[in-house]
């Protein structure tokens, strides 16, 4: 739809954009990204003709821009910027009517019924017809921007150029605006070419993006090129971690400030923790927030936490809403829910095992409660059954090291291997199948890391940290199951 070839230009003699080529396809949402001064707005102004081109060619729907008259261009291409200065108090409807300028013909150029219909249509799309007689200057920022969008749509363009249209808008109005645009783009084949500042917003709404730096295009592609952290760091000069939106297959970026590392002046790794234990809960409190991966009842998945709780429940506990129960218990104790990983067990908490391995790097601390009444051989053929008896292995493992997300998953694998080996060595039997079990039916696992030191992407059995945590978990689990067996033997 827009084809830019070897475009160069800038302000006066200063060439901001140098030899840029790209194409915006019909019906797509194309976003131009880059830091301030990278030439985004200059490219826009060169396309719209506000700035003169020093070289290159711009084609609009196969026709050279220079061959089109001003009004022909305006009938195909509308521009929405962040302007909101209007001289005199024009009403909303009068502002939207301005969008019909390129369509009005004839000597007197009066308003036709076609003009009126187009204005009504775009006002209703942008939901501004309610205040059509209100003066534009009395509107809020979000309303103003919607009116300006209505004006642009009244132009009935095939291409819409947006120069940071959501700059002054709050989150809700930003999303309102972009949802509106996205809908219009998809239903009416409108081509949207936008300058956006917020990379995460761009990732959610754009089909393709171009990364611009110092007037040069670094890369053009789908929004997934935003996953290239190094490239983004070079373009923006900010530390970037790329992740993914949890519900949409789009990258989301995390930017890091320059912060101090956790001080290492404390005695040993285990002194970082404070243990409070009673018959209802084991509560470990860390002095610093730790990076966590877990399948806990509270704080599941990847998170950060300071409090780690394992609650005791009766074996006949009614588990209709375990999350709310843990929330209540945490609140009773004054522990912040949002910073907590919470687990549950029917095992007696006094049988808890806590082992540490202090070292120069990758010190580890394991806290385990174990019961094997529900031991299951995951490989044996049997329908999964509901929990039968007390018995679950809850493992909390704390590591003094910097593990990437991948390494955290790897650590979970290592921890599970160690646990399974214990069950195998102790001949724990799946009572249903008679085979050696692999775990219990409701095991919980937490890995928590300080994230200080150099990041490591691995924590398997071929690494120091993997080996160390495996050994620690093996010992601790063995002791914990031993305690459980002693107690059940007595009964």
């Amino acid at each position, binding site marked *: 739809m827009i084809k830019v070839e070897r475009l160069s230009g800038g302000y*006066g003699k200063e060439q901001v954009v140098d030899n840029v080529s790209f194409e915006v396809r019909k019906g797509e949402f194309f976003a131009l990204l880059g830091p301030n001064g990278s030439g985004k707005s200059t490219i826009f102004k060169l396309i*719209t*003709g*506000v700035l003169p081109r020093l070289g290159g060619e711009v084609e609009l729907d196969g026709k050279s821009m220079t061959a089109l*008259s*001003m*009004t*022909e*261009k*305006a*009938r195909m291409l*509308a*521009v929405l*910027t962040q*302007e909101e*200065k*209007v*001289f*005199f*108090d*024009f*009403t909303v409807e*009068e*502002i939207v009517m*301005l*969008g019909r*300028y*390129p369509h*009005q013909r004839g*000597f*007197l*150029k009066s308003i036709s019924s076609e003009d009126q219909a187009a204005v009504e249509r775009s006002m209703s799309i942008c939901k501004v*017809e309610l205040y*059509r*007689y209100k003066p534009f200057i009395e509107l809020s920022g979000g309303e103003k921007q919607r009116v300006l969008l209505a004006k642009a749509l009244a*132009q009935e363009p095939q291409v819409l150029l947006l120069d940071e249209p959501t700059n002054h808008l709050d989150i809700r109005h930003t999303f309102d605006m972009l949802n509106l645009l996205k809908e219009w783009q998809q239903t009416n084949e409108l081509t949207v070419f936008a300058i956006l500042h917020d990379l995460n917003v761009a990732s959610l709404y754009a089909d393709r993006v171009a990364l611009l730096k110092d007037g040069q295009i670094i890369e053009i592609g789908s929004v997934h090129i935003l996953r290239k952290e190094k490239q983004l760091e070079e373009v923006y000069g900010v530390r970037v971690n790329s992740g993914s939106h949890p519900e949409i297959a789009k990258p989301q970026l995390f930017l890091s400030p320059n912060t101090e590392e956790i001080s290492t002046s404390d005695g040993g790794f285990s002194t970082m923790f404070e243990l409070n234990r009673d018959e209802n809960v084991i509560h470990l409190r860390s002095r610093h927030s730790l990076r966590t991966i877990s399948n806990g009842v509270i704080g599941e998945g990847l998170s950060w936490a300071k409090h780690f709780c394992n609650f005791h429940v009766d074996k006949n506990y009614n588990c209709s809403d375990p999350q709310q129960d843990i929330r209540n218990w945490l609140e009773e104790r004054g522990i912040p829910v949002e910073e907590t990983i919470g687990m549950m067990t029917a095992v007696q908490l006094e049988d808890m095992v806590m082992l540490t391995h202090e070292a120069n790097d990758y010190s580890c601390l394991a806290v385990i409660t174990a019961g094997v009444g529900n031991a299951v051989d995951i490989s044996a053929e049997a329908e999964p059954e509901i929990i039968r008896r007390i018995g679950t292995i809850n493992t909390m493992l704390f590591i003094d090291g910097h593990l990437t997300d991948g390494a955290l998953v790897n650590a979970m694998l290592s921890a599970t291997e160690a646990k399974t080996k214990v069950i195998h060595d102790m001949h724990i039997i799946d009572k249903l199948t008679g085979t050696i079990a692999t775990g219990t039916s409701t095991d919980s696992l937490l890995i928590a890391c300080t994230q200080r030191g150099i990041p490591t992407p691995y924590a398997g059995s071929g690494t120091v940290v993997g080996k160390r945590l495996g050994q620690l978990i093996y010992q601790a689990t063995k002791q914990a199951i031993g305690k459980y067996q002693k107690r059940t033997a007595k009964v």
Partner: protein
Amino acid sequence: MDKSSIRKSSSNRILIGMYIFSGAFLFLAALLGLLVSSVTVPVPSIIHIILQNSIGLSWMEDIPRNLEMIIWNIRFPRVLLALFIGAALSLAGAAFQGLLRNPLADPYTIGVSSGASLGSVLVLYFQINLLGLGSFSLPVVAIIGGFVALMIVFGMTRLSNRGMAIETIILAGIIISAFIGAIVSLIIAISSQEDMRQILYWLMGSVGMRGWSHLQLFIPFFLIGAAILLLHHRELNALAMGEESAQHLGLDVKKRKIWILVGASLLTGASVAVSGSIGFVGLVIPHLVRLITGPNHRHVLPLSMLTGGAYLVLADLIARTIIAPKELPIGVITALVGAPVFAILLMRRFGRGKS
């Protein structure tokens, strides 16, 4: 009928009412201007004299020759001139305010009037008689002066390398005005007592003692200038959101800007040339109209013409009758009467805005 359409029809009614009111106001003001004077002429006679002289219709006998002279050769051109000058200045003011996006802009902002004034003052001082044009020398030289000033403003704006930016036009206009104003002061300072009185009186503005010849000189400029501006009402609306935005709507901003400047300058230059610089009308009448009709130039431009014309006819009427047989400068009346009226309207409007 929903609430919004009621509002719409009521706003249409206001507009139609405004046109009818302005038209009637203009007509009555003109009639009053013809009627009131030191010599009283009955209304039927006035109408007869005008119709007889303009379209040859005659039904009354024995109207004294001197009365016909007074009405047709002195009062009627005077009223018409006041009407056209008022319309021209108000229209030019509305266009300048819209184009320069500045509520303080008036026909005299960009220096055209200063150029015209200097031309007139030079004629008065040096007693120039251009190629036997006689009393026409003054307006002709004044128009040339205004045109030269406009060209200097354009030239300065272009050379400043900012592509006809509005701020540069305003600044260039103010610089030109100040410079020419200094020259005019210099001429006044070195002129004789009698010349000085004549120049000062001319500068204060008047529509008296001009006759048909000045009207004939003025009308072509008026028609061309008014036509140019009235045809640009949509462009003026589009420019209200800034030039870049107007360009995005498909407006050839540079070209349109020059057209509007030329149109408004034709009106201003010609007005100053025939009647001196009459203040206040071009600044306030457009604002007054906007207070009632809203800012849409489709209505602001024609309504400013009607209202401005009527206003200046009335102002002239007061100026020549209030201390008769002496005359006050018309600019004194336009401001003395207009400023309080405008102030009251402005305060009432803001009061309403608050509640």
